[in-house]
């Protein structure tokens, strides 16, 4: 509902209420942080920049919140904080590094420094807890369980054909 309403400027307040409700009812931090991110986006769009920053800072685990924070901090002249947020965004969205001009912004603030790659990589690694178990079949009908991969490093690519 909130996503639908936020497309219409006149309904932004109602959209914000929807996302506040979603935040309060969220059963997982990822859902909660997603709702907070949308609240921040609405407040930012309404020009309530300080309110947006305040709430987005509560969604540190959400990379899109970091992007919005980066934009808000940069506009406010808080360049180091902006870069910190952009680095956390790019850590989760590697393909967006050029889109947010991170290398250029970093060079503007930290002239001559070359540790950006290392900072991004540090922000990329965390501990989200155990991969939950589940049973699957593959396209050939063979059965698998995710716990069958314990003891090896595992790269899981989650995709959609559409």
């Amino acid at each position, binding site marked *: 509902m909130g996503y639908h309403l936020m497309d219409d400027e006149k309904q932004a307040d109602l959209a914000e209420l929807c996302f506040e409700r979603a935040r309060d009812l969220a059963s*997982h931090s*990822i*859902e909660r942080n*997603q709702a907070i991110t949308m609240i921040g986006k609405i407040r930012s769009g309404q020009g309530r920049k300080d309110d947006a920053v305040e709430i987005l800072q509560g969604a540190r685990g959400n*990379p899109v919140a970091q992007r919005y924070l980066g934009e808000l901090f940069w506009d406010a002249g808080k360049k180091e904080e902006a870069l910190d947020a952009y680095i956390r965004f790019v850590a*989760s*969205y*590697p*393909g*967006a590094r050029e889109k947010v001009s991170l290398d250029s912004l970093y060079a503007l603030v930290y002239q001559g420094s070359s540790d950006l790659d290392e900072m991004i*990589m540090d922000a*990329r*690694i*965390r*501990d*989200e*807890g*155990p*991969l*939950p178990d*589940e049973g*699957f*079949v*593959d*396209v050939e009908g*063979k059965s*698998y369980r995710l*716990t069958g*991969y*314990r*003891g*090896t*490093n*595992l*790269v*899981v*690519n*989650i*995709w*959609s*054909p*559409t």
Partner: protein
Amino acid sequence: MSLRERQEELGLKLLSIEVTGNLKKTREVVKDKEGNFPVLLDCRGFSRDVLHITGTPTTLIVDRQGRIRSRLIGYMKNFEEVVGGVLDRI
């Protein structure tokens, strides 16, 4: 060196999960693709409801203890470099 070439050194397995569980479409997409890894069908919304995947593609990197150590969203031109860099550090 590609991730596939480094699989043994990194003690690495690759897995693909297709989120719609659409067997016919998935078979069409993967039939001409090179890749020696299982393509699993997510018929029960596990990716969305349990893994909280908010968009595809998403890449999860899981360590030997079975813990999720990185979550990478979207397409990456330098996939091998990014994923290899994480695997070298966990």
